[in-house]
């Protein structure tokens, strides 16, 4: 997903956030769907979106911030061009996920919750993709790969 640059179009982005939040405000429990929709659109939930969402939903900024920070899959910084989610949970551990994690971090030169300097890849931990019969598993954006050896991972990273 391409992420718009902050700056000149900040006003445009605020209007967009306001419009998205407005679409979900009327729904019961609409805050989570609104936050998802904002992240789907912008790639992340920028800090400037918090006051806008708060005013649309008529709740405090602290509440909006509290919800965003509670959930691991909401992010407040722009992701790289692709996001690599590496499964760290037990069924993947049983098939070499720890070694895969080490390899990945070394190869990309970043840790979890970080993005490569060229902004190609963001690396995130994830705890089970339901692919546990063909572990270890990773997800790139929204496509899951199974039986991922370090070599297979390198090949997948080359592709994009």
């Amino acid at each position, binding site marked *: 997903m391409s992420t718009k640059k902050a700056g000149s179009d900040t006003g445009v982005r605020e209007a967009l956030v306001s419009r998205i939040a407005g679409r979900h405000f009327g729904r*019961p*429990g*609409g*805050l*989570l*769907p609104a*936050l*998802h929709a904002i992240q789907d659109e912008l790639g992340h939930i920028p800090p400037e979106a918090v006051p806008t969402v708060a005013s649309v939903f008529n709740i405090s900024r602290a509440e909006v911030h*509290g*919800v965003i920070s*509670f*959930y*691991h*899959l*909401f992010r407040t910084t722009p992701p790289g061009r692709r996001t690599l*989610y590496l499964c760290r*949970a*037990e*069924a*993947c*551990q*049983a*098939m070499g996920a*720890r070694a895969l994690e080490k390899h990945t971090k070394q190869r990309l030169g970043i840790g979890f919750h970080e993005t490569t300097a060229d902004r190609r890849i963001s690396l995130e931990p*994830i*705890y*089970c*993709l*339901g*692919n*546990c*019969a*063909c*572990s270890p*598993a990773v*997800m790139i954006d*929204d*496509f*899951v*790969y*199974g*039986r991922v050896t370090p070599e297979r991972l390198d090949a997948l990273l080359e592709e994009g």
Partner: protein
Amino acid sequence: MAAEAHRVFVPRDTTARSMGADGVAAAIAAEAAGRGESVTVVRNGSRGLYWLEPMIEVECDGVRHAYGPVQSSDVAALFDAGFLAAGEHALGLGPTEEISYLARQSRLTFARVGITDPLSLDDYRAHGGYEGLARAVELSREEIIGIVTESGLRGRGGAAFPTGIKWRTVLNAEGAQKYVTCNADEGDSGTYADRMIMESDPFVVIEGMTIAGLAVGATMGYIYLRAEYPLAIRVMNDAIRTAEAAGLLGDDVMDSGRAFHLEVREAAGAYICGEETSMLESLEGKRGVIRYRPPLPAIKGLFGAPTIVNNVITLASVPIILAEGAEHYRDYGTGRSRGTLTVQLAGNIKQGGLVEIGFGHPLRELLEDFGGGTASGRPIRAVQAGGPLGAYVHPSQFDAPLDYEAFAEFGGMIGHGGLVVFDDTVDMGEQARFAMEFCAIESCGKCTPCRIGAVRGVEVIDRILSGDDEAGNLLLLRDLCDTMVAGSLCALGGMAPFPVISVLDHFPEDLRAR
């Protein structure tokens, strides 16, 4: 008249795709075009024989023949071997229904999974779909709940609470608005039955929820679906639209004059939101912090209204119970564990996959006869049963039958039915450490034993492993586990110590200075 097109089935489920099913489907279409063969590729669900994925099938004279695992590079050779006429090939598995892994199962809840096109309502109906709801609309609320109670169905999300009793509580609770919520957060590592059925037979989840709605007088349902399952989210949403268009959801369900609406709500990656009160908070758009109980969600649940919270598999088991009757279902199983269990074989296992089978089979049978031992070919050292809060089961315990009570006897848990297998290269000290680390990452923060205890747990284990006062810290670790078990508000902090204690008890040689 032109010859009828050959029907070739290539699964569209996440795991099949993760192993290359999309490429295989494309290669088959291209190869067929190149050879002038008339082929229809059907993207079915997965049969759940995951070590054989991508497993393709071809229909000949009404019998489906399987080949797998197939890679795109195998496709030309399969055509050469005449696979369209079930020709012999090294990847040939014979008639699918005769593959012993499948033939030995009792597929009730998963009756259609892998057979049908998940999003074809016609296919669903042609295979017994919506017979349960058709029966339910003829019955009173009490009668529906009576059948579910008699079937012996207990919640498949982990706590194994009798489903009929839960529904009756909701029925009897006061409230103008009631809700049915489906817990599709499936956070336990080693489990994928919810994902599989949502991707491969979404209408059965919808039908089960609709029956639940009729039974308690709820007109609105939510599926709380984990964000880690993007494909399941798409399939469920598509199926809901189709059911609405067919009058199977909406203001007048199946011309019954009764309403039931359904919506998918995407979760956002917090394990604790699988706990039911936390899930309800999240559905309300809040932080997923645990609620004190009482009141039970059945009495004061979503937005304060009486609410059914059931696991996906629980709800997906309801249609067949209504269609075939309570006895048919309860004839499977043993003791107080009635019906079928959907075992999910995962981790270091040669033949990983979904096994739906009556309760009561010994764990060993699943690991050895179905699973075929480890993928690495090395001995099994430990099996984590029941997810990240479940004990590590030692090989000396493998004769235990898979039933809720028998597992509880030795401190084990069936939970959602996941079995994660480890070979003898596993470092059980690291596994104990991860149990605490996971609890620390996922704690909702409401109570101290869990929030602080889990962080301390990681530190204490690190000290043990690094040789810093090993004896003293081992005592401290036991103590900390006791405190968390006794003092935590919910089962995350209350059970995260179980895997740790099982390592202390059964694999003590790994929890010491190195």
